[in-house]
């Protein structure tokens, strides 16, 4: 809401006033001292402890992947007719996690939601780490990942080209573009912050590294002008990507004829699910960051409150999507579709269907209560629930649809192996290892963007309109 300079705050009903974005007195200088100090100080013991745990998990993942390479894909539970199982479930799951970061950094930027500034950096970093985890799965699923470059259309001695009508190839382009754009967006945002760190640090080595990374940023007004324009354009471009990447991922399923996959609701349904899962992960990590890194004055309860509201609204969209799936199955009068839907609620894997429904639809409803949105217990419970629920949603979509399709003689029950679980655990390890490292070496809050929205940060005659 834009306030006229002439209008005094007293004229506006209290409920409509935008609350302060930070708690207590924060100045540009104190912000730097608070946020940019982490990389300069020695990490606490708990950090090393956490890193040890995540590295162990990552190591288990590396061993599982290594075992897969030596033995072959047979080490997994994948078998006819369930050729897509944990690998694709995890791929979709991790790509989805990334979407929250892009939504926060791009779409909320376009909507001029100023509260996003404090959490955008962390969410963007999580996007990049999640996409890194995601790409592992298609790579190892091809069986011989050292030949994975065959996925790209390049002139070769075999005189072969890729099939541009395959959604799997669209995926290659979509995920690679998504990663490149996210990385670019993240790095551009980091440049002014790294410049601040460059000018603060006393360590020679850090000075060199930051100097190179900051590419000689000096805060010139002419530079800021182009920078802001570039940031706005990137936000616009990334907005398209938020909607497109998971749509393309959903095409992998929706363009096939498997009952349970062949539905037009898939693209929006996948995008909503991705944002849902991503926000849950961001809330989970932000609560930990807020507590352990003492950023309570910057990442306020209001941030968590707003994000919990997003989770709640996404949960309602998911509920609608699940109902539409049931409706489509019933209204189509297609017995295969009907059978597929009944499998979700009563079949061998019916328990997975109910885990999905309760974790994604029922538990988040607690967030209707303001007290629950302000309580760590409930928001963590919901976030963990949503993470589990969204993983199982992909399990439901992929495994339940595949294990019983048109041909009853081909039906088979799918059972994952320990290696499957090892790889899944490993990606969680890699993800949180990267998060922990990021929290120690780079500013976890976009100080430049937060500085710009602090009280008195802008010339007084220009109102409170905001540009990051």
């Amino acid at each position, binding site marked *: 809401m834009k306030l006229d300079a002439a209008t005094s705050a007293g004229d506006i009903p209290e409920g409509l006033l935008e609350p302060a974005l930070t708690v207590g007195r924060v100045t540009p200088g104190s912000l730097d001292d608070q946020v940019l100090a982490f990389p300069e100080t020695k990490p606490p013991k708990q950090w090393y402890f956490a890193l040890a745990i995540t590295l162990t998990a990552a190591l288990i993942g590396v061993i599982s992947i290594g075992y897969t390479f030596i033995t072959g894909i047979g080490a997994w539970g994948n078998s006819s007719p369930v050729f897509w199982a944990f690998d694709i479930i995890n791929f979709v799951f991790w790509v989805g996690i990334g979407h929250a970061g892009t939504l926060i950094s791009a779409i909320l930027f376009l909507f001029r939601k100023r509260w996003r500034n404090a959490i955008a950096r962390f969410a963007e970093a999580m996007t990049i780490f999640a996409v890194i985890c995601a790409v592992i799965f298609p790579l190892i699923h091809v069986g011989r990942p050292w030949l994975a470059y065959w996925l790209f259309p390049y002139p070769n001695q075999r005189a072969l080209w890729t099939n541009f009508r395959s959604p799997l190839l669209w995926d290659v382009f979509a995920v690679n*573009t998504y990663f490149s754009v996210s990385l670019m967006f993240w790095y551009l945002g980091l440049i002014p912050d790294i410049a601040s760190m460059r000018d603060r640090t006393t360590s020679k080595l850090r000075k060199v590294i930051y100097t190179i990374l900051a590419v000689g940023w000096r805060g010139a007004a002419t*530079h800021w002008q182009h920078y802001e324009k570039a940031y706005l354009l990137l936000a616009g471009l990334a907005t398209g990507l938020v909607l497109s990447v998971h749509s393309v991922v959903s095409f992998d399923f929706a363009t096939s004829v498997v009952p349970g996959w062949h539905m037009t609701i898939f693209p929006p349904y996948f995008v909503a699910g991705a944002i849902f899962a991503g926000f849950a992960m961001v809330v989970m990590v932000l609560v930990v960051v807020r507590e352990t890194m003492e950023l309570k004055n910057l990442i306020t309860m209001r941030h968590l409150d707003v994000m919990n509201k997003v989770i709640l609204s996404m949960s309602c969209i998911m509920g609608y999507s699940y109902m539409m799936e049931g409706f489509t199955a019933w209204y189509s009068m297609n017995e295969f579709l009907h059978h597929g839907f009944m499998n979700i609620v009563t079949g061998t894997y019916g328990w997975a269907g109910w885990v999905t429904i309760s974790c994604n639809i029922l538990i988040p409803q607690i967030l209707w209560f303001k007290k629950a949105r302000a309580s760590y217990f409930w928001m963590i419970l919901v976030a963990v629930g949503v993470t589990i629920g969204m993983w199982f949603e992909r399990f439901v979509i992929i495994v339940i649809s595949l294990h019983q399709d048109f041909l009853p003689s081909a039906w088979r029950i799918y059972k994952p192996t320990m290696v499957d679980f090892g790889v899944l655990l490993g990606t969680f390890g890699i993800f949180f290892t990267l998060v922990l490292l990021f929290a120690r070496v780079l500013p976890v809050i976009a100080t430049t*963007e937060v500085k710009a929205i602090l009280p008195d940060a802008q010339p007084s005659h220009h109102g409170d309109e905001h540009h990051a």
Partner: protein
Amino acid sequence: MPETSYSVLGIFETPDALMKAIPKARAAKLGEVEAYTPYPIHGIDDALGHRKSPLGGMVLVMGILGAITAFGFQYWISAIDYPIITGGKAANSWEAFIPIMFEVTVLFATFTAGLGMLFLLNKLPFFGHPVLSSKSITGITRDRYALAIEAEDESFDSAAAAQTLKDAGAIEVEILPAPDRSPFLTSNFILRALGGIFTACVVAGLAMFFLTKWFPLLAPMKYMQDQPRLNAQKASTFFKDGHGMQQPVAGTVARGFLPTATGTQEEAASLVNPLPRTKEVFAEGRKVYVNRCEVCHGSLGNGVGSLTAAYGGKPANLQSQMFREYPDGKIYWAIVNGKNAMPSHAPYLSENERWAVVHYVRALQRAQNAKDEDLKVVAP
């Protein structure tokens, strides 16, 4: 203090003070006025008289270029260079190209926005700017607002500029030298760091080269090569005769290998070459001749091949009178059954290939004994 100064920096404590000082600094007309701030200040572009950023137009153009590139690339591959029908769709069905067109558009536009902003418009990376090595830079990237009057000119009046900024309310004034435009950086540390990265790349490259050279057969997963299957020529306990490769059923005849010219050479004389005398047939015949006949009969067919000396035999001189008068069928018979030391070529030359060679041998004979009329035929 440097001898020749090119710019003067005035420090302000609040954005308001900075904004108020800008018109005064510009009015002095001592040089370019530039501001250095820790974050973007609203309205500063208008105050400084900046023109609109051209980035939007650049991104639009490159985005459109990305879309066209992606469409052209996919269309050329799918419809022209490699038209494989998949999913029953026409080779040029363009609807399926849209997702990748979108992605490539975004990719082109993003790189233009990001790198175009940094490299083209802002001329970064540039480490030689005096502001970077000034003592004010720690404030500029933290919580101070700087206004600079800059002129890359020997006659720049730094004292007047400093006084202007002080009058405009600067709490501190710093006089700076000209930018160091030597190859893009000034710090020895940075040079050393980049040198280190370069060395590491070279070492890694050499290491990869020698690793792949010394361990060329290092295959991470050989299970798809070592399959439990029966290879040709391998022994097998599965079959009674102990051979891995089994004989075809008695009387099996491969396509193009019907038994022909089974009688004597004289009987074969009446056979007629069924192939037409076309360029393709002669090319086929030449290929077979080069592969199968040339080592003994020679490239001219005169019986002097590369093996003749080593072998000590006397391959037939196909250019001799006798062979020139042979009917096609007798040459064909010799290819099928072999003659003297020459073995039968029937097992691996199909009927068409044999007849093509016959044509080619005829061509060789005619080329070596050309008449005047032959020249007239070739002449246009």
